[in-house]
């Protein structure tokens, strides 16, 4: 809402600096976002009357004019405007005044001060004391056909003040609960309450209607949907001459952010801005049967609105209809079929209360928003309808020559129920944490327009004013009481803690934090990506689960039309972003949520994922570094999984033909715990890598954080003491099938061993040389130990020999010497 202070001053007078008014409003919840000073594009121009004109002796198109500017004096001016004539009131720039180039909207103090002062000129041999100005020369518009013509004005008065050109406009953010502040009157009420002053009385009286006969018209108003429209008032005006509004009106509308249209439409907008009551003007001649019926659209399926667009109606939309057809969508926009135009002679002004929900629903469905619907949606004054018609009629009489063509028809189909809020003593204090005397609470509420009576025993009965639909219960009144003096009045206090126990934290969060720390230690940098991806991303990187992607019903764009199934697209994007900026390597991870359909329902899952590309670690001059490859990323994943206390054993399995299609089929693995897949890792498929223009292998992993947490040990693990007796190591070289996974060898050994075998470790894999093709040799270190004694050689030898025999048979392996 834009509030010109000159307009505010018509409703309230406050002895305070603008900054102080703004500060008080802001602290009270009516936030002033900007203070804009507007200045005219001229200085020292006054209102003047042309006394007489005569032809310039040396030029056909020039006139010699005598102008009178009250106390400023009388002057002789040469004027070239075709419209100059004796008796007209216009703008006179005297000697020494300054004019900007005349470009519309280019106001500003600096600029005007730079403009040269006007000097006396001799035009075709005759001296001119100053000049008469066009709208363009004054910076008011592009109009330059003739000089400015004013309807009225006091000679010698400062033109800037007369046209509201010298003003300050406050830009105010009105919260959705304060529809009452969407008007000059509403803001004036607020200012009056904050500064403890009274509103100026605005006298609004009905004008005299035409005598029956002449132009008087009859109208009938019926409300068929009182649930959606409880009140509808209408006033016909005849003998209206449609034309442009006077400058002061246009100026005010522009300062308040609206575009001038014609004198009638401008008047409805002006009254709406002044009082907060939206008005609509129909061309009475286009209303069939002189009837207004407020009803649901029902079988009427469409209407063409003022903007020329055909709109589909739903049966429950509220419309204004004449005897035959809808002529407006209630509160949203008028119909083209009843529009006021240049030929309109008789108008019907509508001033109604429409229920916020109906206007909001229809407006949203049609994506049609107007200044009127904005106010209806937020709730206008339940009792402000007739007053607005008075004001509109007064202005139209003045600027459009109209007369009331009948009395106001005011249908109150569903009177507003009385509202009462009972305030128990101390109710406000116990919410705010500060005790206020009942009398003070009462005083503040009264200053806001509430009707306050005592209910006995310290109780207050509060009837909120009709323009505050947002006040419904004691908490609402507490806010009003608190904000009037600013919240500084409330002390800051520490709450009583009932328990001194340390506050808990969600286990998933603790786990995510610990996971993050391991990743950082592994040299991966944390990234954050946006959860929206393109459908292609989800197809390329379907993640761990099998659920279908979640589609966004109203995405920002096609590139962001689904929710990510996997964190990989974000990591790949981050990699590409950094490579494009000359990074040679990138190692990152993300912990976040991914989304997939769980049957018919969208569901979310916690993931951790990482990416490695390029030089990774431990290199320097003369020493080659480790670069991203399968075993680098597997090392990180193993380090991570090993860092989780008591995590159940996990297995890495080469993928099947169809799974993990985005990974290199020979350099990737699915990771499972107890047969359940908890993740995967591997090198990006060469086709994907080449698509991303990656020169060296790119490795990724993704793990299901929730599943891992579920498989991690619960609290209360037991700690084992370090062994006291030495271990004995026996190495073993087995020649096995080349395709046999090392994991299988180790598993067989573990399962075949006696209880003296403490651990087995693979330390070498060898192929080629003297080995037959299709075979490989694996070197294995076996560690034997007893908890209770030092093992003898013969004990170890016996156990080892037994182990070899069993493994040889079990794996079809030969011993290599």
């Amino acid at each position, binding site marked *: 809402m834009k509030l010109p202070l000159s307009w505010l001053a018509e409703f309230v007078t406050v002895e305070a600096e603008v900054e102080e008014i703004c500060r008080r409003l802001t602290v009270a919840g009516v936030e002033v976002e900007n203070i804009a000073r507007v200045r005219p594009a001229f200085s020292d121009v006054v209102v003047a009357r042309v006394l007489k004109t005569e032809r310039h002796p040396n030029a056909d198109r020039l006139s010699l004019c005598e102008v009178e500017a009250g106390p400023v004096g009388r002057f002789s001016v040469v004027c070239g405007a075709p419209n100059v004539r004796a008796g007209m009131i216009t703008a006179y720039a005297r000697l020494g005044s300054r004019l900007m180039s005349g470009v519309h909207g280019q106001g500003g103090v600096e600029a005007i001060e730079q403009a040269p002062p006007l000097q006396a000129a001799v035009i075709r041999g005759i001296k001119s004391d100053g000049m008469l100005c066009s709208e363009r020369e004054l910076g008011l518009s592009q109009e330059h056909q003739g000089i400015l013509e004013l309807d009225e004005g006091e000679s010698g008065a400062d033109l800037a003040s007369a046209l509201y050109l010298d003003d300050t406009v406050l830009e105010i953010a009105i919260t*959705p*609960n304060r529809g009452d502040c969407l008007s000059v009157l509403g803001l004036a009420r607020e200012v009056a309450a904050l500064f403890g002053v009274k509103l100026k009385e605005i006298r609004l009286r009905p004008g005299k209607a035409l005598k029956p006969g002449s132009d008087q018209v009859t109208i009938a108003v019926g409300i068929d949907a009182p649930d959606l429209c409880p009140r509808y008032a209408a006033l016909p005006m005849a003998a209206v001459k449609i034309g442009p509004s006077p400058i002061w009106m246009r100026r005010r509308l522009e300062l308040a952010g609206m575009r001038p249209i014609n004198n009638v439409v401008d008047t409805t907008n002006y009254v709406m801005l002044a009082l907060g009551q939206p008005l609509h003007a129909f061309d009475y001649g286009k209303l069939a049967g002189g009837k207004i019926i407020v009803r649901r659209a029902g079988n009427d399926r469409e209407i063409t609105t003022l903007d020329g667009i055909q709109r589909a109606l739903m049966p429950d939309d509220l419309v204004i209809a004449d005897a035959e057809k809808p002529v407006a969508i209630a509160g949203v926009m008028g119909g083209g079929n009843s529009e006021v135009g240049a030929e309109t002679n008789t108008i019907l002004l509508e001033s109604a209360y429409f229920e916020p929900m109906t206007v909001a629903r229809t407006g949203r469905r049609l994506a049609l928003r107007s200044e009127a619907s904005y106010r209806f949606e937020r709730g206008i004054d339940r009792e402000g309808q007739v007053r607005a018609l008075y004001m509109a009629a007064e202005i139209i009489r003045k600027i459009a020559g109209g007369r009331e063509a009948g009395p106001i028809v005011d249908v109150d189909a569903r009177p507003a129920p009385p509202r009462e809020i009972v305030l128990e003593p101390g109710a406000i204090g116990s919410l705010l944490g500060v005790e206020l005397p009942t009398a003070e609470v009462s005083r503040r509420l009264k200053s806001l327009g509430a009707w306050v009576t005592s209910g006995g025993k310290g109780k207050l009965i509060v009837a909120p004013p009709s323009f505050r639909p947002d006040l419904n219960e004691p908490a609402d009144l507490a806010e009003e009481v608190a904000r009037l003096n600013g919240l500084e009045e409330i002390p800051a206090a*520490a709450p009583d803690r*009932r328990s001194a126990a340390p506050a808990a934290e969600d286990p998933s969060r603790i786990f995510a934090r610990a996971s993050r720390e391991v990743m950082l230690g592994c040299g991966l*940098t*944390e990234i*954050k990506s*946006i959860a929206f991806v393109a459908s292609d991303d989800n197809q390329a990187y379907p993640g761990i689960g099998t659920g279908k992607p979640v589609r966004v019903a*109203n995405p920002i764009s096609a590139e962001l039309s689904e929710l990510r199934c996997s964190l990989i697209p974000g990591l790949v994007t981050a990699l590409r972003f950094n490579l494009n900026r000359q990074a040679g390597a990138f190692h990152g991870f993300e912990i976040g949520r991914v989304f997939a359909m769980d049957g018919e329902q969208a569901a979310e899952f916690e993931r951790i994922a990482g990416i490695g590309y390029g030089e990774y670690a431990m290199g320097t001059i003369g020493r080659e570094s480790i670069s991203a490859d399968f075993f680098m990323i597997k090392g990180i994943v193993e380090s991570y999984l090993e860092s989780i206390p008591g995590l159940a054993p996990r297995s890495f399995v080469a993928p099947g033909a169809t799974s993990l299609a985005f990974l290199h089929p020979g350099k990737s693995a699915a990771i499972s715990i107890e047969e359940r897949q908890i993740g995967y890792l591997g090198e990006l498929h060469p086709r994907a890598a080449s698509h991303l223009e990656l020169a060296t292998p790119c490795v990724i992993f993704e793990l299901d954080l929730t599943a891992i947490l579920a498989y991690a040990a619960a609290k209360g693990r037991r700690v084992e003491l370090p062994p006291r007796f030495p271990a004995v190591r026996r190495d073993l070289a087995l020649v096995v099938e080349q395709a046999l996974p090392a994991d299988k060898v180790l598993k067989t050994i573990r399962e075949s061993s006696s209880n003296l075998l403490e651990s087995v470790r693979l330390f070498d894999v060898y192929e080629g040389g003297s080995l037959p093709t299709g075979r490989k040799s694996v070197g294995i270190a076996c560690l034997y130990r007893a908890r209770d004694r030092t093992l003898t050689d013969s004990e170890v030898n016996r156990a080892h020999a037994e182990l070899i025999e069993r493994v040889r048979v079990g794996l079809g392996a030969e011993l290599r010497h």
Partner: protein
Amino acid sequence: MREQLEQIRSRALAELAAEATESAIEDVRVRVLGRAGELTEIMRGMREVPAQERPAIGQLVNQIKTELEARIEALQGKLKEAALERSLTEARLDVTLPGAKIPRGHLHPITLTIENMLRIFNAMGFEIVATRDIEDDFHNFAALNFPPDHPAREMQDTFFLGGGLLLRTHTSNGQIRVMEQRRPPLAIVCPGNCYRRDELSVRASPMFSQIEGFMVDRAGRITMAHLKGVLTEFLRAFFGSDTAVRFRASFFPFTEPSAEVDISCLLCGGKGCRICKHSGWTEILGSGMIHPNVLRAVGYDPAEYQGFAFGLGVDRTALLRLGVEDMRLFFENDVRFLGQFPASNERFA
């Protein structure tokens, strides 16, 4: 025999002069003390020595042996020392060359900000609860006193997922999720991602982080004064003890009374600058007393319970703290930006 021994000794000692080389010393050791050395030979020939002389000769042999061994050891020690000295001067590295680094990652600034905030709240007695991103209308709007078609819903342009579900537009769903399950006293913070239909730009992102907090107890026990106390304490702990805090009335559907909280502008300290639009204040969070309708929606009697709630935008706060103005920095993941953050949850200056 004695003479022979003396000869062996003096020759050996002569050869074991101070400047003897490693190989000269080794030669002497092998020739005299070795398995087939001169002294060994003499011991072997002992049976030819008259019996009564044997002990004396044996003693002499041992004496010479001990003497020579000591001498050799001393010389070798000296040589070793000299060699070490030599190697120390020779093996000089260019210590300005880079080390072989163990890589170290960096925390994302949003994470850092969230963790720092939560640490303060946790220390102030707030329990940390994770809640969901996918919500239904009830938990994101209706229960929070956003009636259908209410203009307040437009403050939050929502992503819909179909099936009556949506992406939460704020972490305030945490209030409803927790209060549905539990009874006061409650002191809870819920961090999480929120989603609104804004394009990624300098000022906005379709996904961002918030922290919702609320404290509920019996009516009268938690008041607006406590809201002010708790938030002032938090903001001073997070932004510095000299931070000025201002509460001003505002509107949120789920609180009544509502208050926006401003802090003194971090850039100008309150004097007024471009960043704070010359007001000296920066809007930092929204708060208020939980609306009675919200309490009713979770089955609490507003006459019995009351409390406060607040919502804090993490991304914007992080921008303020870092003194940068572009939201996109958080989602581009430029390592030249991320690399400036530590690998721990320590506060960043």
